[in-house]
């Protein structure tokens, strides 16, 4: 029983991180019709900028505040300087462009930080395990679960209950019509792209104390996030959440109960869902 609770929480923590990355990926696709290959690199960037912030201030918490705007601003800058010019092309070119940007950013991080992984210390407040009715559980992981859940609910409320969210949903549904009705589509695209990168950066800095900041964390997370959005359906926040939970569960439970087959389980789940719903659980058929 104790094991079950522990594994459940582990799955939720993994899902929380996955959600922070895949929600942005999905949101950007919904608004810009672009699959951002560089999204994982922004996650990695979040971890590295977080490392620098912790190194400079000696505290963990400022990193959580500093990283999202920095990473988000860089994302918005990239959207205005490159992506903006090729929206009219076939979608393949946008994917390739972000792939090129991912290569440049990844190599730049290698130049700046060197090839070795950078450890980030756990914040003092969350260093210990917490007692959950007989189960000792690392409190930082619990924090990640709460963070992922809070951001998920926050994004959902923002999209559903605010005026800005309404405009974003209008652009997602029909950008030409939204443009005619006076929405500043170009600005919405830039802001959404920036916000999505900020979310990925937040995911990266939250992951850093558990995984360290290392080169290659971007690609490993983007592959997982792709699996998440393939399962959940691109462009749907609910789909990202469901997909994150499924992939998080498949990864952590697979690693615990069937360590040899852990990798296979994630893909088996994806394959099974694709056979029945090629557009994902919450996606719409093209």
């Amino acid at each position, binding site marked *: 029983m104790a094991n079950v609770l522990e594994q459940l929480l582990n799955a939720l923590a993994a899902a929380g991180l996955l959600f922070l990355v895949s929600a942005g990926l999905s949101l950007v696709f919904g608004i810009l019709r672009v699959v951002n290959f560089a999204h994982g690199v922004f996650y990695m960037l979040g971890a590295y900028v977080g490392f620098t912030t912790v190194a400079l201030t000696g505290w963990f918490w400022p990193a959580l505040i500093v990283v999202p705007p920095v990473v988000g601003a860089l994302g918005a800058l990239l959207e205005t300087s490159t992506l903006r010019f090729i929206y009219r092309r076939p979608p393949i070119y946008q994917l390739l462009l972000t792939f090129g940007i991912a290569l440049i950013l990844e190599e730049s991080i*290698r130049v700046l930080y060197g090839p070795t992984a950078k450890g980030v210390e756990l914040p003092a407040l969350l260093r210990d395990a917490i007692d959950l009715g007989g189960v000792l559980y690392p409190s930082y992981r619990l924090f990640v679960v709460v963070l992922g859940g809070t951001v998920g609910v926050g994004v959902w409320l923002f999209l559903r209950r605010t005026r800005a969210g309404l405009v974003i949903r209008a652009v997602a549904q029909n950008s030409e019509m939204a443009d005619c009705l006076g929405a500043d589509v170009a600005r919405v695209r830039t802001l959404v792209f920036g916000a999505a990168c900020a979310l990925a950066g937040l995911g990266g800095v939250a992951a850093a104390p558990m995984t360290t900041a290392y080169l290659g964390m971007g690609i490993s997370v983007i592959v997982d996030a792709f699996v998440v959005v393939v399962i959940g359906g691109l462009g749907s926040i609910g789909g990202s959440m469901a997909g994150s939970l499924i992939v998080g569960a498949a990864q952590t439970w697979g690693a615990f109960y069937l360590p040899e087959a852990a990798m296979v389980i994630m893909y088996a789940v994806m394959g099974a869902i694709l056979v029945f719903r090629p*557009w994902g659980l919450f996606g719409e058929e093209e």
Partner: protein
Amino acid sequence: MSAPRVWTAAALVALAIVPWVLARHQLSLLTDLLIAGLFAMSLDLIMGYTGMVSFGHAAYFGLGAYASALVLLHWAQPVPVALLAGALLAGAVAVPVGWFSTRATGIYFAMLTLAFAQFLYTVAYKWRDLTGGSDGIAGVPKTELFWGGPSLTSPRAFYFVVAGCVVLSLLVGRGIVRSPFGRALQAIRENERRFTSLGRDPRPFKLAVFVIAALFAGLAGALFAPFRGFASPEVMFWVFSGQALMMVIMGGIGTLVGPVLGAMLFILIQEVLSSYTEHWMIFTGAVFVLFVIFAPGGLVGTARRLGARG
């Protein structure tokens, strides 16, 4: 003779002469480049002619390399046997992957192929008994041309095997894209919905071209293993898939010969820059981004456009 024929004849003559002109290091670079070109060409079949962007094409190159390495190392068969084994293994694995991946289109297809390739990479990395894990398989010999035939250990002999494979593959590839089957692929690329509404099911065509592309990628990988003398998980890594995409775009998507030129450009940039900096990928990435924004037709596409204008 028309201009393309002159170019083709000139290229064939050049390929036949260069082994006697180039220094050892240059010939080895050229061999490397032709293998990469063959790999990029195979990607162009699905990407340029059918409009399916695969982000996991390196998996089939890697499967070809492993199959060829094992055949040469453990059974000491002639090189063509290893090439056949490499191509067939890659093609065989592409059947189930393609069956799943072609259920999706566009972006979903790209993501699925990447996910499957990462899975195959992990298998190659973890299956130590067969693949040697992260060390890979070293000491792969260049055996002979056929049983009791001439040895291929000299760089010049092996170069001719590679050049022959590349020229043959280009011819076969051209035959495929000009056949009724190839026309159907291009129809799918242009408008899949119309293709469906004309009463044809696009999926068998997509699966077939995916498997054909994997066969050629496997052939390229099967040449790579004896040429370099090893097969390792790196050749299955996503970075390599991405590099193939860059070669296709920089050379000219949907032209078959363009990707070979793209591979040439890519490897030459790498060769020149890597003597100045280990971070050459930044510059290659920048060149690629410039191509995507300003010259989406690549070298060949842009040259044709300029030629048509002038």
